[in-house]
């Protein structure tokens, strides 16, 4: 399937590049010798941290000697995607970092492109979602929340760290839906960032929070809040005390992945090289140091499988967003 996509867009320039780089590089090594990270946001955010973390591991492990970064914010990430596509022929070493919001934003038509316009290389890490309540909350398991929600959705006001209709909102709406409630009834209270949403829970103005696990785990460990459910498939190695939604009878998983994309229209050999480079890097001790330092869970899906994973996620999110009335 991959091959078909490449052939469709063959272009004289691409052909030339393929010939030039295909030949020289295959002989040299089977990894990229140079990586340029395109980060669709300013310095200091999650995308930036992930790209720089992977880059750091590349240099420290000696796999890739030449690593550079470029921050290009704007349009919720759309500007960087547009640039990568426009300048594709000269972006043979470029990896664009992105994450789940890319799927959401292209569904919402915030930018016209989707992951289909790029070449998905691999996801590297994931942050699972979780639902938590205050330590003295009457809710002890997810089922308690559902019972209260069905009685009156106003008993379970949900704090979330992003705009209405984005990740934090639809993850919990989906959980309520699969527990037999109506996703449209969810009272979602948006805050400007996960930290402020957490404060919204702690002040007692909301009863439950829907957020990334990494933003809630320490509060849980210190006993201020209790995590009722995680959206991973099985219990996580790093936090085996946390019950999953699956084991509480809700057939739902959700991973907020972060991964890399390449410019379209290059040779399969080049993409294989990118895939191999990422696979090698995340197997290094240098990367597990970076991962542990940041508390990231590994989620390595590459090439064709990553493409399928994205399609699946797009269908799930799209269906739900239609039900919630965010998409027509």
């Amino acid at each position, binding site marked *: 399937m991959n091959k078909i996509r490449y052939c469709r867009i063959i272009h004289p320039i691409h052909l030339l590049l393929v010939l030039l780089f295909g030949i020289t590089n295959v002989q040299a090594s089977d990894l990229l010798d140079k990586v340029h990270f395109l980060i669709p946001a*300013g*310095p*200091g955010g999650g995308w*930036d*941290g992930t790209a*720089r973390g992977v880059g*750091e591991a590349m240099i420290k492990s000696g796999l890739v000697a030449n690593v550079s970064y*470029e*921050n*290009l*914010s*704007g*349009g*919720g990430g*759309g*500007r960087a995607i547009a640039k990568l596509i426009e300048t594709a022929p000269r972006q043979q070493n470029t990896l664009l970092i992105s994450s789940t919001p890319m799927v959401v934003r292209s569904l*919402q038509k*915030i*930018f016209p492109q989707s992951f289909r316009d790029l070449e998905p290389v691999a996801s590297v890490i994931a942050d699972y979602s979780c639902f938590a309540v205050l330590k003295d909350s009457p809710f002890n398991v997810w089922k308690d929340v559902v019972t209260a929600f069905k009685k009156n959705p*106003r008993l379970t*006001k949900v704090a979330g760290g992003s*705009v*209405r*209709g*984005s990740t934090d909102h639809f993850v919990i709406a989906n959980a309520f839906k699969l527990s037999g409630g109506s996703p449209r009834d969810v*009272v979602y*209270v*948006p*805050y*400007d*960032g996960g*930290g*402020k949403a*957490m*404060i*919204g829970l*702690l*002040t*007692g*103005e*909301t009863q439950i929070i829907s957020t990334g696990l990494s933003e809630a785990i*320490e*509060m849980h*460990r*210190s006993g*201020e809040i209790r995590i009722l459910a995680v959206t991973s498939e099985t219990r996580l190695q790093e936090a085996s005390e946390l019950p999953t939604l699956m084991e509480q009878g809700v057939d739902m998983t959700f991973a907020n992945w972060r991964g890399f994309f390449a410019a379209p229209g290059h040779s399969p050999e080049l993409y294989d090289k990118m895939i191999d480079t990422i696979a090698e890097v995340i197997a290094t001790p240098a990367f597990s140091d970076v991962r542990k*330092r*940041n*508390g990231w869970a590994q989620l390595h899906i590459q090439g064709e499988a990553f493409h399928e994973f994205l399609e699946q996620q797009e269908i799930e999110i799209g269906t739900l967003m239609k039900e919630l009335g*965010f998409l027509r």
Partner: protein
Amino acid sequence: MLDGLLLGFQTILSVQNLLLVLSGCAVGTIIGMLPGLGPISAIALMIPITYGFEPASGMILLAGVYYGAIFGGSTSSILINAPGVAGTVATSFDGYPLASSGQPGKALAIAAYASFAGGTIAAVLLVLTAPYLAKLSLGFQSADYFVLMLLGLCLVSAFSKRGEYLKALLMTCFGLALSTVGTDLTSGVQRFTLGRMDLIDGISFLLLAMGTFAMAEAILMVLRGDNDKFQGVTRGSMKLDRQEVKTLSPVVGRSSLLGFFVGILPGAGATIASFLAYGMEKYFTRDGPQFGTGNIKGLAAPETANNAACTGSFVPLLTLGIPGSGTTAILLGALIAYGIQPSPRLFVDQPGIFWAVIASMYIGNLFLLALNLPLIPYIARILAIPRTMLIPGILFFSIMGVYLVSFNTFDILMLSMIAFTAVCLRLLSFPMAPMLLGFILGGILEDNLRRAITLADGQWSFLWDRPSTVILIILTLLVLISPVIQRYISK
């Protein structure tokens, strides 16, 4: 408490760490001086360097960078009217007129002393009250933030000259309108983005401030043709006489308290603290009408509050493990990278780190003062540069600063458009400060109002449901009617 602090000082008082504070302050000051680049960029740049260090040393370096960047930001605010950080926009209201009237040395010295006092007083408050403050900041709900922002808006008359209240009011509404551009948090709908993807995150406050101040100022200099206005101006005296110290002390005291308490609120922050301090000071002092023309109180108040608020913003980070501002979010990232997760247990689990961070605040502030006071005469000479070179320089650094934040050329276009509009408005003597006030309060005001309404099931009852909201409403009403009462009493 005291032994904890001693432990902290013991940790950081080594030659290596002192050198780190020093280099952090120096690097931070330089980065902060570049218009547009503030503590967030400075810290993000320095974090990778600190990975090899002990956690305490890393934090000490970053604290130096943090305070340095804020101080550097006020330097460019004062000297060339180009705020480096959102928090120092209010500093330029009186700092720039003071500097351009021939006293740049004094203006910078006051800023240095005020920053030092604000930071240090807030650090003392932090040590004494941190455990209780966490509870206080958690007592503030959306409804309270809404009323607090209303209180801020009521100070709008403080940002206008006598006889220009209507213009000030108009500009405030303009600022409020501008704050609605972008994605609406509550509904997820894009508003007034004209279909451009560059506008979906809204207009950046710094961009607006740079356009209305730095760039518009440079253009106005050309239009006015004041080519040689400052030539021959020396740095002016740096010394404050006894009378000035006496005038400033209460201002610094009040603004430190105000700044610190606004700083600990995760929904407010340093920029709002500096605006509130400026507004309050102008509103309630007798020489209020002279604010905006180079009044030393008008310079000291926002500068003190800004630094106090930065220290205050560490409270939610250190006691709850929750970042209350963009900068503390970056610092949280750094702490996690060192293997330290701030949480309510940090104080108990890792007292070494907790107290080292606090001790580094004292040391950072002290070094900053020591580093910058001797440098002021040299920095102040920027104003002695001939206009023909200074104006292109300001334009260059403004554009570069804006571009370096986003790497998006649209922002440069936007900056130019804002500057053009601002020049027209300023030529018609519309004041710019009320617009910035409306803009910065507008977004937070709206988000909190709509959150409060959602939480109260669509009712307005949140306005009187909780005592803290009621107290804030009463305060707001007092501010509104106080001029009337004052006039009545003076008759």
